[in-house]
Each structure stands twice: as structure tokens, then as C-alpha cells.
């Protein structure tokens, strides 16, 4: 299956809850002597199905956060959606939050869609106790008495191993990990249909992380939510996500069931990624990729990985490989894997 911008959204149950089609989001700046054009997301298509945890991994600065911001509708200049659509099942017909009327967007936020930003330890209002923050975000979505609400929050916090006492704390009084957990709790308390999480566990120790992931999984199971989860921790992906997309330089290069990717990575970048993972008790020397990551301001032509690719061929520097479904549910964009489908 090739990436086709015009996949009709099917209204049946099997329809994806999120369908991204040929999304292009660029940073464009030309002002006060600064001129910049960064193609941070450059033609990405994928679906997230109902009840699925979709993982995104990839090189640092490959555009994951940008992609996620675009999907979550956090688009502020200089970021611009240049093309493509983002369709949520619960927000049909607009092609993206950025195109939907504000009232509609307000309607779905937190109830249907919640978002954990990257750097989530900084997103709490420094002069507001956590209790108030919870009320601000969630109170209107939860139909309960104040007492019940408070109890719900406390219960929920317990799931991320936070004591009820943090409710009376100000954010700066908590450690980075505690803040991050609080943010996760904040984003999940309303049990939304769709959770977008951008590196939400960077500051967590493994014990807590495991609990937090368990909670996310739990919620997702309980209410059948879908999750779009970005992290660099492949261990997390392995344990949490159902499917995994790998990004490189603004593009999706591979997508498959997580187990499949770990078992049989196809794209050379993915392969490298998997093989560079260290393990406890394993003393083999590991290496990072040779060469430097491409600049998105001036990306290499053709396949953007080709300058660093061990399998590079002539075609790679000339044309952009499409995502091809090599096997059911396994898509990859690489001439070396798919063969050069050039006419």
C-alpha cells in the first residue's frame, strides 16, 4: 500500500481513530533579518486504530514533536501546516484540529483528546497548587461532587505512585519525576479516547516508570483509548506499544507491529537503532551512527538517510522512496528493501 493522500475515512468500527494523510508541517520564518525554513514534518501518513498504543521513535530532532504538535493542534507560528490532513474519528470532517472551529476543539480537549507535552515537568503553573491545576483541567469534564472529584484525583495519583499530599504542593517543590507523573495523571484523569504523549517518562526512575506505563496501559484497556506515544526508550516501546513508527528526518521510514520491528527491522536506520541498544550484563561495544544527522533546513535529496546508509544505491540520492507495505501491517520506505519501484 502506498501513501495515498486521499484515503476515504470509513465510518465503521474498524476505522482508525486517527488518520494522518501526507501531513506536511514546516517552520517558516522571514522576519527581522532572520530567514529560516525547516521542513520538520514532510509528508507523513499513518493511522492509529481504536484501542491501540502507537509508538513513535526515531532520531532526535526528526520531527516527532512537531508531528505530534500538529496532530494535537498546538500550532503556532512559525509552525505552519503546509499540506495534508489529520482526521480524528471524534472530530470528523475538518481534517485537523487547526482547521476546526475553536468551539469544536474546546469540546474535544481532555474529554476525547489529551496531550502531554515534551518537557512535561515544566507545564505546571508555578503559582498554583496541584489541586487547583487538576480542577482547572478536569473538573468540568467529570460529573461528580467536589468530594468525589477530589477522591478520584487522589485515587488516580496513587496509580502513578504519588501521595495525596502533592495536591497541596506547588510544582517547584516537587522533583522533576514527580512533576512528570503529576502531568501524566493530569492528562489521563478524564480517561480520554485518545492520549498523545511526548516523552512523558524521561525523568522517571525505572520502578516508577513501570508503574506509570502500567497505568497508561490500564486506562487504555479499561476504556479502549488509543495512545500515541513518543519516546526514545526502546524498552518502553517494547513493553507498551502495539505498533511502532520509526521517523527519520521529518519522514516516517518504517511502521509495523512493535514485536515485528524488534524481531525483523527492515529499514537500515531501524536496524541500526535496534542493534545499538545496550543491555545490562552485556559488555559488547556499541556505536552510534556515523555521520551527522541531516539538517531539516536543507535535507539531502532523495532518501534522507542515504548519506549515512550502508546500503545506499544510486536511486537513493535521486528519488524519495515511498512507504510500501512489504508485508501485512509492515510498511517501510527503502529502495534497498522494496526494490527500486521506479518506472
Amino acid at each position: 500500500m502506498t501513501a495515498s493522500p486521499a484515503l476515504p475515512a470509513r465510518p465503521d468500527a474498524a476505522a482508525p481513530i486517527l488518520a494522518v494523510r501526507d501531513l506536511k508541517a514546516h517552520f517558516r520564518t522571514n522576519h527581522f533579518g532572520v530567514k529560516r525554513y525547516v521542513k520538520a514534518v514532510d509528508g507523513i501518513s499513518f493511522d492509529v486504530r481504536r484501542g491501540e498504543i502507537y509508538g513513535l521513535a526515531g532520531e532526535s530532532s526528526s520531527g516527532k514533536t512537531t508531528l505530534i504538535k500538529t496532530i494535537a493542534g498546538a500550532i503556532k507560528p512559525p509552525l505552519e501546516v503546509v499540506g495534508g490532513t489529520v482526521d480524528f474519528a471524534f472530530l470528523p470532517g475538518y481534517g485537523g484540529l487547526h482547521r476546526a472551529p475553536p468551539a469544536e476543539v474546546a469540546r474535544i480537549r481532555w474529554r476525547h483528546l489529551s496531550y502531554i507535552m515534551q518537557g512535561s515537568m515544566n507545564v505546571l503553573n508555578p503559582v498554583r497548587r496541584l489541586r487547583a491545576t487538576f480542577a482547572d483541567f478536569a473538573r468540568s469534564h467529570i460529573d461528580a461532587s467536589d468530594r468525589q472529584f477530589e477522591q478520584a484525583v487522589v485515587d488516580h495519583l496513587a496509580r502513578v505512585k504519588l501521595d495525596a499530599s502533592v495536591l497541596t504542593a506547588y510544582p517547584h517543590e516537587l522533583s522533576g519525576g514527580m512533576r512528570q507523573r503529576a502531568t501524566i495523571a493530569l492528562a489521563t484523569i478524564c480517561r480520554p479516547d485518545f492520549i498523545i504523549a511526548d516523552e512523558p517518562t524521561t525523568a522517571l526512575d525505572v520502578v516508577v516508570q513501570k508503574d506509570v506505563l502500567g497505568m497508561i496501559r490500564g486506562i487504555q484497556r479499561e476504556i479502549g483509548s488509543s495512545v500515541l506515544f513518543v519516546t526514545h526508550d526502546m524498552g518502553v516501546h517494547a513493553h507498551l506499544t502495539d505498533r511502532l513508527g520509526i521517523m527519520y528526518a521529518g519522514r516516517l521510514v518504517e511502521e509495523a507491529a512493535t514485536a515485528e520491528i524488534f524481531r525483523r527491522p527492515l529499514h537500515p536506520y531501524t536496524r541500526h537503532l535496534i542493534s545499538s541498544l545496550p543491555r545490562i550484563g552485556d559488555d559488547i561495544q556499541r556505536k552510534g551512527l556515523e555521520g551527522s544527522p541531516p539538517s531539516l533546513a536543507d535535507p539531502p535529496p532523495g532518501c534522507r538517510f542515504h548519506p549515512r546508509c550502508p546500503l545506499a544505491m544510486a536511486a537513493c540520492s535521486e528519488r524519495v522512496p515511498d512507504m510500501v507495505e512489504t508485508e501485512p501491517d509492515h510498511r517501510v520506505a527503502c529502495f534497498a528493501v522494496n526494490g527500486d519501484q521506479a518506472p
Partner: protein
Amino acid sequence: MLRILRDLLRYNPEFRIGIVLVGFVLILSVLASFSPYPPDQVYVVPPDVPPSPTYWFGTTSRGQDVFWQLTFAIRNTLLFGGTVALISRVLALVIGLVSGYKGGWIDRVLMSINDTFIVMPLLPILVLFYFVMRDSMSWLILALIMACLGWAYDARLIRSVAMSLKTREFTQSSVFSGMSTREILVQEHLPYVMPIVFSTTMNNMVWSIGLEVTLSVLGFTDINTPTIGGMIYWANQHTAMVAGIWWWIAFPTAIVVMTFIGLFLLAVSMNEYIDPRSRLSRMGGAS
């Protein structure tokens, strides 16, 4: 630099209007040098003439041409307000930033001094100064005194911002990049307080000019030097408002208002320029 100016002019309507307003006032004040009448002489033109082609802004009951009088007045007043603002800004910035950043006993000493200035009631002090200085009380001395009395409040404001900046991690990054305290204050913290500096500068100018007018209305003014306050003083002495010589009051007031609306718009656009987050986003939707 020119590019920045060009972009500001192109993308920033506030900047455009601000430049026009402030430019107009500046040109007016420069014109003072070309006045056909010496500023302190009375009865050089027929009194009480309403605005007309010969006397654009009319003439006063003292037989002065409002237009030319105004050129001197606005020049002196801006000079006055500017001097006060400049000196007191430097004081407020240095003391506020240092006090907030250094903390400890330095903070306590500086804040004690600062509080002493804050608590001193202004008007009686100024009036007493005036009595003591007598006719050697020129606008410059008045400006110096006001500058000394006008920094304290803003220093406190700046200190409170500096205190929270100090807790930000980037301050530590700067420290470990080997920046000296001065560099941190000037290069890291100053840009943060710049919008506040702009707004307090304007507030300070309004304050000092207002106080100058107040002193004038109370009769404490160097009536030889034309200023906006001086013009109002004389207009007041001639009950211009009820005598129907409205142009004697309306034009000075309009010019002052214009000046500050202009400065306000400039400050708004400058704030945007200082913060790259808003600066770089301007173009987004526009183009």
C-alpha cells in the same frame, strides 16, 4: 540594523504609527531652534487669536504664538522627562537587578535604601527644595532631584522579576559559562526586564512630566523656561479654560498625548522584537 528597521516598518503597524507620532513631536521640538520669537517674551503677537493660517495654533493671552511656544515647551518637557527617566532607569535597573540577583545582605542594604526613598513623600520635599534653591532651581536640577526620587519603586519591581529569574536554570548555565555577574545581569536578565523597563520608562516620564505640571499648577515652576507645565501654568493664570482660549490648553495637551501614544506603540513593537518567540512568529499567518 536597517533590515530590522525595514521589517519593523513593514510588518508592524504599531511601529509605523508610533514612528509617525513620535517623529512629528520630535520635528516639532527641533523646530524650536527656528522660532521667530524668543520663548520668554510676551506680547510679541496680538493676544487671544484663535488658530488661523497666520497663527496655526492660535496665540495666548500673553501675546505669544502657541505653535512656537509649544515647540520650546515640548522640547524642554521631553528633555526633562527624558532626563528624569534616563537617570532613574539606570538607578532602578542597577539596584533592582543587583539586589534581586545577589540577595543576602546586599539585598537588605539596597532595599533599605530603596525603601527609604519610597517612603519619602515627594511633594513637600520638592516644594522645600524649590524654596531652598530659589531661582537657581532650573529644570535640570529639578530633573536630577526627581530622578533621585523616582527610581525606587521601579527598582523594587525589577528586583522582584530578577529574584524569580535568579531561580531559573538558565542563570546557572550562564554562570557556568563563565559570565561575570555584570554580564549575567546585562545580557541575560536585562532582556527579560526590558518590557518592564519600557513600561516603567514611560510611566516614569508621564509621572515626571505630570509632577512638573502639578508643581507648575501649584506655582512652583521656573516660569522663564517654557515647558508644558509652564504653558498650563500661564493658561491657568489667565483662566484660559473659561475664557474660551481653549487652544492654549488643547494643543499642548494633544502633543503630550500624541507623544505618549507614540511611545506606547513603539514600546509594544519593541517588546515584540525583543522576544524572539513572538518576533519570529509575526510572519506566520501573514504571508
